[in-house]
Every structure is written in structure tokens, then in C-alpha cells.
């Protein structure tokens, strides 16, 4: 095994933080992201919010190395993103794509076991440790009851949980989640986001999450980043961001903020 410049294994889990400097991304002359500079602190849940096409998904895809930025640099744990080896990166950062309709011909356990690939590689043995991690991940996400069911028999919420379990088995210090609740009803949204929050706090994971619903984002994230037209226009704690003025800037409609009657959290509504 090659000695790494930085040990990214979970034992010596360092401050795993992302930093973007002047990042732009354009496709066929259209700028999807323009000059975005920000940093995501370690051990926190960072929410990306914004209107449709604001560049949220693009940004998270750049972080996940699904695309390369057109301009600017991205750093992870103080190292340039492109300098990290493929396997090394997959051991440190897990990514949940928006579209999880693939992998129908597998059982849930097999899907979760895929998450061990960065650890055993193309030829290595699937060790007992790998097996343990798979079971542990399924227990954490409460999918152990359906371990032998085929993925295509699952409901949308179960499927998203199964994929989350795969990300857990990947045993990384950082999760990148692209709209993990897009296809879910309100009950399942709560379930999945509560799970992410619990996992983040229990295991000290850094999470970057794209969310559509501003109230859900404010409720479950430690910090919010608002994008508009490919630019970062606001960032801060949910309490600071949730004002009528800022929300108007983000979504372009008149909004106002009230307090949750039972919990002490802000609630946004359209005027």
C-alpha cells in the first residue's frame, strides 16, 4: 500500500473540510457556477439552498469530483482535490447522487457491500472487517430488516435509506448528499434527515447536503449556504439567514419568517 501524504482513514480522522476558491463551472458557454469561494467546516452539517438551477447540485458534483471546475481550485483537508488518488478520495468522501434508480438487480445487503469497494479494491479479499462494517451500516440506518430484499422492490424512502447505508459502509469522514429527500413525502423526509443528523453527530461526520425545502434545511443544518444564478449570495447560521429580506434575495418572492409554535426554530412562509 502506498504511504499517503495525509492519513485519511477514519482512525486518524482529521478535520475534513472542503474549501473552494473562485470556482466556476460552465457547460457549452453557459455558466452554471461563477466565482464561488467558500469553506465547509469539519464535523458540521452544511446545507446548500437556492432556486432551481442555482448551481447547488453543480457545486456538490464538483466537490464529489464528478466534474472538474472550469476555473478556480478546490481543496479537501488542505490538499488540492485533483491531487488525491481515486481510491484514497473514495475512502474519505462518500457521495449520494440525486438519481438512485440504478442497482435494481441487487439485494440491499449487496448494495451496501458495494460501499466497501474503496477498501478492498478490485482484487482484495472481502474481509471479516468489511462484513462487520456492512452489518453495522445496515443497523445504523435501520435497513437490516430488509437486507435480503431486492432493491427494486423497495419504496422510495427505503431505497434512499439503503443507499445511505451504502455510504455508511464506505466509512468516510465526509458525506456529500444531493437532494436525499427529493422523492420523499414529509414523513420520510423527516426520517432521512433525522438519520443524517444523528449519524453526523454520533460519528462526527462532515456533511454537505443539497435541500430544496428551506424549512427542512433550517431545521437540520448547522450552517446554510445560499446560491443564486451560480453565485454564492449568503451564508450563515439558519437563525441569521432566515429573514424575509435574505429569503427574498434567494428565491425572488416575498417571504416572511415566524417561529415554530412548539420548537424554538424559525419557519419561513410565502406572503
Amino acid at each position, binding site marked *: 500500500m502506498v504511504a499517503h501524504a495525509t492519513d485519511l482513514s477514519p482512525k486518524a480522522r482529521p478535520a475534513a473540510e472542503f474549501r473552494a476558491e473562485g470556482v466556476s463551472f460552465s457547460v457549452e458557454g453557459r455558466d452554471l457556477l461563477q466565482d464561488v469561494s467558500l469553506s465547509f467546516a469539519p464535523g458540521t452539517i452544511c446545507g446548500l439552498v437556492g432556486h432551481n438551477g442555482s448551481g447547488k447540485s453543480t457545486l456538490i*458534483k464538483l466537490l*464529489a*469530483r*464528478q466534474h472538474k471546475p472550469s476555473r478556480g481550485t478546490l481543496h479537501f483537508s488542505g490538499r488540492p482535490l485533483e491531487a488525491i488518488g*481515486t*481510491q484514497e*478520495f*473514495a*475512502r474519505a*468522501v*462518500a*457521495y*449520494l*447522487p*440525486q*438519481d*438512485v*434508480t*440504478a*442497482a435494481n*438487480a*441487487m*439485494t440491499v445487503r*449487496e*448494495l451496501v457491500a*458495494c*460501499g466497501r*469497494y*474503496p477498501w*478492498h*479494491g*478490485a*482484487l482484495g479479499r472481502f474481509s471479516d472487517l468489511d462484513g462487520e462494517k456492512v452489518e453495522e451500516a445496515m443497523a445504523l440506518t435501520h435497513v437490516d430488516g430488509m437486507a*435480503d430484499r431486492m432493491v427494486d422492490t423497495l419504496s422510495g424512502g427505503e431505497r434512499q435509506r439503503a*443507499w445511505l447505508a451504502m455510504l455508511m459502509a*464506505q466509512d468516510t469522514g465526509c458525506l456529500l448528499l444531493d437532494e436525499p429527500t427529493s422523492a420523499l413525502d414529509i414523513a420520510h423526509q423527516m426520517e432521512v434527515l433525522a438519520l443524517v443528523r444523528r449519524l453526523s453527530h454520533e460519528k462526527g461526520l462532515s456533511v454537505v447536503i443539497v435541500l430544496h425545502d428551506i424549512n427542512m434545511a433550517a431545521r437540520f443544518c448547522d450552517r446554510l449556504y445560499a446560491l443564486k444564478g451560480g453565485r454564492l449570495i449568503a451564508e450563515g447560521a439558519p437563525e441569521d439567514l432566515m429573514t424575509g429580506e435574505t429569503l427574498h434575495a434567494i428565491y425572488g418572492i416575498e417571504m416572511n419568517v415566524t417561529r415554530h409554535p412548539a420548537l424554538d426554530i424559525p419557519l419561513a412562509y410565502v406572503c
Partner: protein
Amino acid sequence: MSVRSHLGPASIVLALLTVALVLAVRQAAPVLGDAAANAGMARIVFINSTLPRMATALLAGACLALSGALFQQVLRNPLASPTTLGISAGANLALVAVTLFVPGLLGFGRDLVALSGSAAAAGLVFLMGARQKFSAFSLVMSGLVVSLWCGALSAVLMLLNERYLVSLFIWGAGSLSQQSWTIPLSLAPKLAIVCVAVAVILRPLVLNELGDAGARALGVNLGRLRVVAVIAAVALAAFVTSAVGVIGFIGLVAPTIARLAGARRAGAQLVWSTLIGSALLFLTDTTLLATAGTFADFLPTGAVTAIFGSPLLLILLPRLKIRHRLMEAPAPVALKPETARRAARIVLPAAILVLAAALFFGRSPDLGFTLMPPDLAGDLMALRLPRIVAAFFSGAMLAVAGTILQRLTGNEMASPEVLGISAGATLGVAAAVFLVATPGLGAQLGFSALGAFGVLFVIFLIAARSGLQPERVLLAGIALSAMVDAVIGVIGATGDPRAIFLLRWMSGSTYSVTVLAAVLAAVLAVALVGAAGLMRRWLDLLPLGASAAAALGVPVGRARLLLLGLAGLLSAVATMSVGPLSFVGLMAPHLARQLGFVRAAPQLLGGALCGGMLMVAADWLGRSLAYPYEIPAGLVSALVGAPFLIILMRRARG
């Protein structure tokens, strides 16, 4: 759980092998049982011909099935295989061309030649598929077109070089007949090497099922994975083709059986597909030996597998998820819409000019180009006029049939050639040639129309269940042409003199057109094109979709039936004189649209004239290019038409 999922495929392999072995032992029994008395010739034949043939069947089946399973895994496409992607046909064409024109190249190794052919075919297919993000449909579609084209071209190349005809043809159609152990012994290590490579990429292949983003997030280098897998699959297909010729559809059938039997994951599918393919080809071959007797040496196993394999493609069709539509980007129209009258005014003079040029201009015995000398006018007219007339009206009919089909299916790739209607007509004529001793013009026409209607009927039977989705109609048509092609291959391999007649006829030579045939073509063309003109309103409204057209008062069911029948008749008559492969029915409607003839009536008329001109030009080129030899007109226009189709597919956006 995991043991159970292996039980199904394992029992299938066992069953196939048992039946095959029983058959094989029964054939071998006279030799083995009577060792002392019969130690002579029969034993030598058994050891040096029958046994190696069995080994070859086992190995070739394994290679093709593994190749198909790899393609299906890496492209996430249940219809991919060396046959459906045109890989085998590409290798075959390369081998035929090199054997005929630069036999010296074979010194570098047949494998190398086959490999470059199959790689070129794969490159071409992927090039066409790339524009549509390698969607399952577009890959198979372009693959089958490449496959048919390569197959036809190799057949015609052989036809033009008749001294090689029979043996090359049998080999090209996939004969497993062996005279020594050379081929199985060379195939085995190649298969072993590829198996090692596949073992290395097995885990990444499993992750490939998670989708691009998912696999990449887990650290799989997708680009490298695809390159390695595709190279392995292409190489396997090339090795087999170079050893025994094209053996169709094993690479499609075996993985399908494996999947249906319960092999779920990538690894299981690769292993079980390989074993099933091996057993399946072995069984096919022993069955063939048992039933065909001595004739079996000349009956290519590959053609037999193709006949039974292509219907499977039709059965699988409804399972294929089609993610995109071809008609999303209508062809850019440069000029403002033209009327039918303008069409006549612009294109008619051009058509007359082309006709006149083809009639009066030709090559003289000293190889120069000359005007028709007046003293020979009578003789030359008698020679040239019938074929020019036949070519012109056949081209026009194909163009009208293409216009109808494109408007009816709402798909700009539809045409009599692509939908297999022409191939059906060919099959009809084949039946006529073999059933009726000397079929007259009327009998040929009748049988050819029957064949065309048969194909049309089957296509719509299959596609109607899915609401006539254009993609399914197309794919069904291509699958049917592949099957018809295989039938013709078997007939060709028999070496029957009637098969040679059929081959020449397929290549679309106007050489033997009689005055009567020309007159018949002209009369029918005028009548049928006139009938199409009467239905122009329907043709304008039907592309709006069935419900919209019905709401506007078009009797959709009846209109479709009438139009389809007309298209079938047009194709059948045209195929009579220019063969099934001209692609004029595809090109002419597009040409007409590019010229600005957008509405139905102008497109019909303009397309007909364009089609006629194209065919006459192809005929003229065919008899002038290689003078004093002749290249069949249908082949000339196919050589132009296939690249045209490729450009069209490149332009269609996903």
C-alpha cells in the same frame, strides 16, 4: 440465497450438455463400439474432425457468450452482443476484403485482420451512439445497421469473385466444420487470457450497476473500466470470427438465458453466460450434425443460430427501456416550404436531365467516356432504356414508400430497407425461386409482395402492443431483416445455382431487366404513387399523433392499414428490380425535405423524383466505374446510403 441463485443456471448448463452429449455419443457410437473392425478411416475422421469440431463449438460458444455478457454489463444494455453491435460482421468484412484484395496481409495473422475489422465496427457504432449518450436503443440500432451493411457487402464482394464463392460463403456464415485440432487449440489460450483480464475488472463491473455517479463516487475509474471491458469483448468476437466465421446471436441468447435462470449479479452473469453459451452452441451443432447428416458439413451453424436467435431479439424488445426519442430535433429546413407545383417545376427538369445523361452518355470499348454513337443508337437504346426506366421508377417507388413510413411512424430513420420490408420481399422471391421451377414475372411479384406484407404484419403485431412506439417499430424491423439475412445465408451456403441467382438479385443489379419488367415497374409506379397522392391529407395529419389525427376526423386505423399496405406494395415492386439494400427509400425523403418539400404532397412528388434520380445515377455509376465490369446499382446506392444513415444518426439528438 446465493446458492439458490446459482441453481437455475447450473441446471440449464447440465441439461444442455446432457442432451448434446447423448446426441454426440449416438453419432460416435459406431466408431467407438466397433473399434477393432472399424479402426481405419472412421476413427481418423472421428479423432481429427468430429472431436475438434465439438471442442470448437464449446470454445466458440464460450467466447461469444462472454463477449455478449461483457457488452451487456458495461453498456447496461440487455440487447448488446457481438451480433447486435455489428462487431462480428465487421470482423467478417475485414477478413473477406483482405482475402480478396490484399491476401498478403493475412500473413500478419488472421486474428489481427479480424481484430481491426471488429474494432472499426465497434468504433463506428460507438461513434453513432455517442451523440445519444450510448443509449441502449441507439447502440443496438446502429449496430444492427452496421451488421447488415457489412454482411451484405461481404456477400456481394464474394459474389463478384465467384471462384471463392462457396467456401468463403460457408465460412463467412459460421461453419464449425474442422479438419484438425489447430483451431480449438489456438482458441483456448486466447479465451484463457481474456478470462484473466475479465477477472481483474469483475468487482468494478459489479459497481457499474450503481450508475455512473454512484460507481465513480466509490472510486471506480469508469473510463478505464469501459475501455478494458470493450476491448476484451471485441477481441473475443474477433477471435471467433477469424476462426470460424460469424456465429450469430449466441452472444445475445446465452446471457439472456443466464439472467432469466436467476444469475443476477455481474460475476454470476459472466460465468454462467459463458458456460451456457458453450453448452448451447455445442448442442446446436450436435443437433445439426444429427439431423442434417452429410449435408451438415456445408450447413453453417452460425446461420442456423441466427435464424433461431433473432426472434429472441423480438421477444426481448418490450423489456427494453427506451429513454429518448429520435424525433426531438426535426431536420433543419433551409428553404421556405415549397408547393407541389414548384416541386414539379424544379425537380422534374433535373430528373429529365439525369435520365438523358444516363441514356446517352457512357463508356466506349476504349475506356473513354463518349456520347452514344448514332450508328449504335438502336442497340444501345435496347440495352440501356429498360434498365434506366426500371431504375428510375423503382427509386421513385422506394422514395414514396420511405416518405409514407417516415410520416406514419413519426421516425425519420424509417424506410423500407431499415424496416426489413425489402428483406421480406427478398425472402418472398427466394421462396418463389425454390418453390416454382421457373417463376415468371407475375409469380416473382406476387411472392415478393407476400414477403413484404409478412414482414409488415409481424412488425406491427409486435410493435402494436407497445402502442407503435417508433423505436420499437424500427428495432423490430431490423431484427427481422437480420433473420431474413440469415435465411438467405443458409440458402447461399447450399451452393445451389438458384442461390447464386438470388444473391445477384439481392445485390440489386439492373443488368437483366427485361422490357416487360421495365414497363411493369413504370405502370405500377405511376398507379401506386398516384394512390399515395390521394392519401396526402392523411399523411399531413398522422404525424401529429394518433389522438390528434383522430380528433381531426382521420379514420386512424383504416388510414394506417391502407398506407402500410401501400408502402409494402411499393417496396415489393421496387425490390424486384433494385434489390433490398439500396437505402434510396431512406435518402430520398430526406433529400426532398432538405430541398424544402415539407408538406406531404410535395414531399411525395419531390421525393419520388429524387429517388428516381438517385437510382439512375447509381445505375450509371455501377456500369461505368469498373467498366467493362459492372457493379450492381443496388450495391452502389447502398455504399452511399449506409454512410448517409450514419450521418443521420449522428445528427439525431438524444
